[in-house]
């Protein structure tokens, strides 16, 4: 298929004519030690075909056996998404031919998912700092297995035109939970943001549950984005396209926006949408045609005869419910109330990925305001400059608390604290050691300070005259001069006092 695209309709024009409907299918790769149906390990990045056995290679006579932990994780995900948990369900064979599935079928669940009929409230920030909440209905969460990885060898490097493919089955059989939403309608212009926020919150929930590495960049969370447009106010659902493997939060938003604009262009030109899968191109931000769905959808599902049904007792389900962590939304609300942050401050904290860091810094004795100040202004900027996530910057909550304690104890000021952070990032030891090694402690020697103030007054007679005339605001210039001479290592408040004393104001 060519990457040539239809001319897109401006986003605002799409909304004037159409209502979008979203649907998201998110695959979560579980972090169990072994695969779904065999005891092979699941480590990421192992040498090709070193984590395989007769079962996950689909060799004749091999028998699958269900991983208990994977079922537990599936139930916990279902419960966290407010789903019903099936009293009885089966695995099914999804038959298709593709070399990354050595059995020629994928063991999945068909019309009997382990979890169904749930919901998640998704919050999207508005421009005025408030939040809007959308309830996303969850249709189902079911258990299945991942496929192998193909490397296409040939002139183009792409799947079409490949001369042959090389397959690594290490990933084949790793437990996957597929979470499918019902159509999300009514989001209008917020549809791209709602899609992104849903995946982000789902990822946070998965992290809180501890059931997956939840790394979109490594494919342990993968999103397929369904989108359709219907004439505005019609209340119907249009024909949808399914954009596969959108692997970053930003791309989820971009893919929805792009498909809305592309659908509108086709519909507006009198065309109709082909129900098909589409491929997302991260580099160009467009989708291209994959395959038509109608025919290929015929997977001839039938119950897996080699696996007995899963019938979780209600006692087991309740026991697992007892292991659920605090819901991320509730946690945020609780922390915001405890810390007294505004909605905007809270949103920035969450957005910077600093929530847990701030929480731990506060637990180490720092005030909520100071913890936020250091993490969001100083350290977030440095992480951004270094192109790393905040937790990878190399500064711990305990260190931030120690730096703040030094500030409050008067041994350094905010400006010197920034240099302490330089030292911490450079691995120069504890905050106290950095202060010592770099000689950053504030000079509290009154004699030296007094001398510096005298020098500043002598060097700036005009300013000094103004202050003598009562223009106290002019003291700033002299304070600056003194601080410069002291290389920042002075208490600016004390400097001001000394200046005013000496000039009799």
């Amino acid at each position, binding site marked *: 298929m060519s990457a040539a695209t239809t001319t897109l309709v401006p986003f605002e024009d799409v909304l004037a004519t159409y209502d979008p409907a979203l649907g998201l299918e998110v695959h979560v790769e579980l972090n*169990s*030690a*072994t695969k779904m149906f*065999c*005891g*092979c390990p699941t480590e990421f990045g192992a040498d*090709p*075909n*070193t*984590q*395989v*056995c*007769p079962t*996950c*290679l689909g060799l004749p006579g091999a028998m699958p*056996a*269900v*991983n*208990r*932990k*994977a*079922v537990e994780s599936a139930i916990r995900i279902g419960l966290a998404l407010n789903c019903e948990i099936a009293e*009885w369900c*089966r695995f*099914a064979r999804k*038959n*298709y*031919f*593709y*070399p990354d*599935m050595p059995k020629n079928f994928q063991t999945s669940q*068909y019309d009997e998912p382990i979890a169904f009929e749930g919901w998640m409230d998704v919050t999207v920030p508005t421009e005025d700092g408030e939040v809007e909440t959308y309830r996303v209905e969850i249709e189902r969460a079911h258990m299945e297995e991942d496929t192998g990885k*193909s*490397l*296409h*060898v*040939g002139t183009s490097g792409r*799947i079409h035109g*490949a001369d*042959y*493919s*090389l*397959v*690594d*089955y290490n990933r084949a059989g790793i437990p996957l939970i597929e979470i499918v939403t019902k159509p999300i309608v009514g989001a209008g212009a917020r549809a791209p943001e709602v899609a992104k926020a849903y995946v982000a919150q789902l990822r946070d929930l998965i992290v809180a549950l501890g059931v997956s590495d939840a790394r979109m960049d490594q494919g342990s969370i993968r999103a397929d984005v369904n989108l359709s447009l219907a004439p505005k106010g019609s209340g119907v659902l249009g024909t949808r396209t399914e954009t*596969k493997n959108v692997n970053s939060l930003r791309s989820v938003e971009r893919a929805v926006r792009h498909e809305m604009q592309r659908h509108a262009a086709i519909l507006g030109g009198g065309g109709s949408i082909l129900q098909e899968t589409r491929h997302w191109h991260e580099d160009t931000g467009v989708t291209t045609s*994959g*395959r038509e769905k109608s025919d*290929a959808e*015929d997977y*001839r*599902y*039938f*119950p897996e*005869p080699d696996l*007995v*049904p*899963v*019938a*979780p007792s209600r006692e087991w389900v309740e026991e697992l419910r007892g292991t659920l962590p605090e819901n991320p939304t509730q946690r945020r609300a609780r922390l915001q109330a405890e810390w007294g942050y505004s909605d905007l401050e809270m949103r920035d904290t969450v957005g910077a990925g600093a929530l847990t860091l701030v929480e731990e810094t506060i637990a180490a004795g720092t005030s909520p305001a100071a913890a936020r100040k250091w993490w969001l202004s100083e350290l977030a900027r440095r992480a951004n400059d270094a192109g790393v996530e905040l937790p990878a910057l190399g500064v711990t909550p305990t260190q931030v608390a120690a730096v703040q304690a030094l500030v409050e104890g008067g041994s350094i000021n905010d400006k010197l604290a920034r240099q302490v952070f330089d030292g911490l990032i450079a691995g120069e030891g504890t905050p106290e050691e950095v202060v010592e090694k770099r000689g950053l402690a504030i000079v509290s020697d009154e004699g030296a300070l007094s001398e510096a103030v005298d020098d500043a007054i002598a060097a700036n007679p005009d300013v000094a005259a103004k202050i003598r005339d009562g223009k106290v605001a002019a003291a700033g210039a002299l304070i600056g001069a003194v601080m410069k001479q002291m290389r920042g290592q002075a208490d600016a408040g004390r400097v001001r006092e000394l200046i005013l004393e000496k000039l009799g104001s």
Partner: protein
Amino acid sequence: MPEIPGANGPDGQVAITREEVAHLADLARIDLSDAELDHLAPQLAVIVESVASISGVAGDDVPATSHPLPVTNVFREDVVVPGLTAAQALAAAPASEQQRFSVPRILGDEQ
């Protein structure tokens, strides 16, 4: 679960059309000639008819089942079991390269 194509129930009237066989052959990636389709359709009809006759024995009080034994919840603990080495895994492969299974150019699209 989907119905068996052409299985019309206990009365034994079964028809498998040539188009159904062509569709199934397509799904199974089997290239059948027109003559083979004509030949296979009635044969498959007989097989399905024979299987369908079992439905006549089961009354309404016998639920459809996928497993003969009333066993549920057979689980394996999440403990690593040594599998095959890459050399063992690839020993039966018709061709391999870069420690991977080498397979023919993929004609269909990704699933």
